[in-house]
């Protein structure tokens, strides 16, 4: 797997001796958008947390740029930006202040102009930039978090249920933005249970069921992955 930016090699994770991920294997190349699909309790979040370095594998490894995350946490984290499911940035700060705060934590210096450019890129209206985040909708908060991810200039993005709770227009905007980032060379890993959304944006989909990766789908010739095929596999997996 020479070009793989993200890979799982026989990845197994257990909570209190109970196996929640069982020998999962996949790889994601640079510029790919990989969506990990699965129902509740399938092991999506566990996979994500293992790549973020907040969980350790029982066996196997979760790798970023070929290095096991649990052995190279600091170098791995420098390569990634993370967008949590419920993006609750700090309500008492404005969008710009939130971004400045998080960038400062990461020891990254960006000018206000660069921050404003990123907010423009994620289509957050300028009149909202100086409002406190407690006044933002979920979509606006998510745009702010995406702008933060962009400004971190990390080549890899991990997204947790990124379209959950967004209206259709916001989902469309989000998908477009993800495609643009992938085209620009970013590698994107998302976990979701939204089959339709995943097929819209991802060019590689993994189907996780009860801790095991039961199917992998690849988009071919710049075509979207067929929603119906994935949906059938998803339902079949759940009923199996």
């Amino acid at each position: 797997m020479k070009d793989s930016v993200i890979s799982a090699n026989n990845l197994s994770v257990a909570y209190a001796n109970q196996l929640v991920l069982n020998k999962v294997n996949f790889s994601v190349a640079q510029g790919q958008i990989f969506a990990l699909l699965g129902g509740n309790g399938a092991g999506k979040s566990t996979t994500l947390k293992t790549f973020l370095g907040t969980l350790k594998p029982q066996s196997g490894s979760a790798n970023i740029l070929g290095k096991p995350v649990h052995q190279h946490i600091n170098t791995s984290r420098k390569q990634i930006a993370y967008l949590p499911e419920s993006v609750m940035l700090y309500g008492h700060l404005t969008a710009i202040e939130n971004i400045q705060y998080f960038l400062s934590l990461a020891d990254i210096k960006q000018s206000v102009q660069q921050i404003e450019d990123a907010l423009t890129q994620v289509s957050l209206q300028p009149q909202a930039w100086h409002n406190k985040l407690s006044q933002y909708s979920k979509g606006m908060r998510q745009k702010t978090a995406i702008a933060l991810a962009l400004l971190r200039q990390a080549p890899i993005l991990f997204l947790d249920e990124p379209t959950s709770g967004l209206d259709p227009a916001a989902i469309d905007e989000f998908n477009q933005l993800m495609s643009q980032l992938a085209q620009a060379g970013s590698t994107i890993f998302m976990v979701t249970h939204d089959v339709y959304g995943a097929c819209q944006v991802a060019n590689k989909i993994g189907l996780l069921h009860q801790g095991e990766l039961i199917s992998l789908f690849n988009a071919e010739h710049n075509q979207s992955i067929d929603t119906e095929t994935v949906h059938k596999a998803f339902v079949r997996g759940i009923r199996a």
Partner: protein
Amino acid sequence: MLISLKDLKREANFLLRQKRIFVLLLITLILTSFALYTGIIEANKQQQSITRLLQADAQEQEIVFNSKNDYGSIAYYNFHLTYLPPSQLAFAAMGNRDTHPWKHRIRMLALEGQIYESDIGHPELAATGHFDFAFVLSVLLPLILILLLHDLFANERAAGRYDLLTVTASSPLKIWVTRALVLTLSLFLTFILPFVVAAVFNQVAISQIILVGLICLAQIIVWAAICFGLAKTNAPAPRLASILLSIWLITAFVIPVVGDAVIEQQITSPNGGDILMVQREAVNDAWDLPPQTTFDAFTQTHPEWKNHTSMNKMFEWKWYYAFQQVGDQQAAELTKAYTEAAKLKYQAANWLSVLSPSIAVQRAMTRIANTDAIASANYQQQVRDFHAELRSFYYPLIFNQVEFDQQQLALLPQFSANSHK
């Protein structure tokens, strides 16, 4: 992990803009200032009371000196104010000054009754005490710290930011340590700054200001470590708050109250009333006893007056003061038992400090401020010493039946307070 000034400034700017934190710190500042203000008022009131009583005593003494012309009458009618003045630091820790008397107007009668007539059973571990700086420091500081630190991690987890912060920060541990540091430092400042202002205003010695600062710091470090250690677990904020508040309640209230009850039960002590009764009964009974019985008991401790006990009249002052002395002698065993028990109680309370940071802080504060049981015991000893000086002055004049001379009264002992300054 090295925390820079930049890190501290960033977190201070971030945390102090949160309304909840700002309000908590503001309330702390107001409560601390109020506690200091009431402490200063109370200390001033006590000092003014001493000044007023000293003036009244001087006027009364002048009347007695001018109206009486024998030593026995003067010794009987003349009151002497003894007092333990509030130390410079008493405003910060009033301690036992409400339960242990700090002023007695004494005469040359039997002393023990005069000392214990206002005894109300001194609690070794005052459960809450005054709303003074020591109370705020020992009881309220942990509570505010719990409110500030219990959800340090849990709040971020509940808001879904914990992983984002962990993944984003160059050193995740540094965020939490810096935040805890900023919160505890801010709290420290809200406590210590008003105190320093009040202490400078009251001319407290710098060494004492530093000591109080160290006590405050130690209290914050202990509770911050407890809060930080528990907050790191994955428990939700309400559960953490419940656990921490339980620890606070147990250490700040339950241990002092139960400890006091256990100490009172385990260490038996006569109460002041018992001493008073024994001494008064001895004095009252003496009126009905042959004078020689009293003189026999008196001369056992004062053999130098053995040849001066003959009486020419039904009533003579030397007999009267001899049976006052015998009254004290009969109460001596009880007084000794009381003093010994007080020492044991004090030591037992010291051991309890190990279980309760609140007790430890209060005891340390009242020791520095000279307002604790030791200060009270030292004051009682001063009163006894002064009373013994009065007897040493009057006995030769009365037993030798020296002719009255106003000039002699210039040599009358004067009480001198030996307060910690």
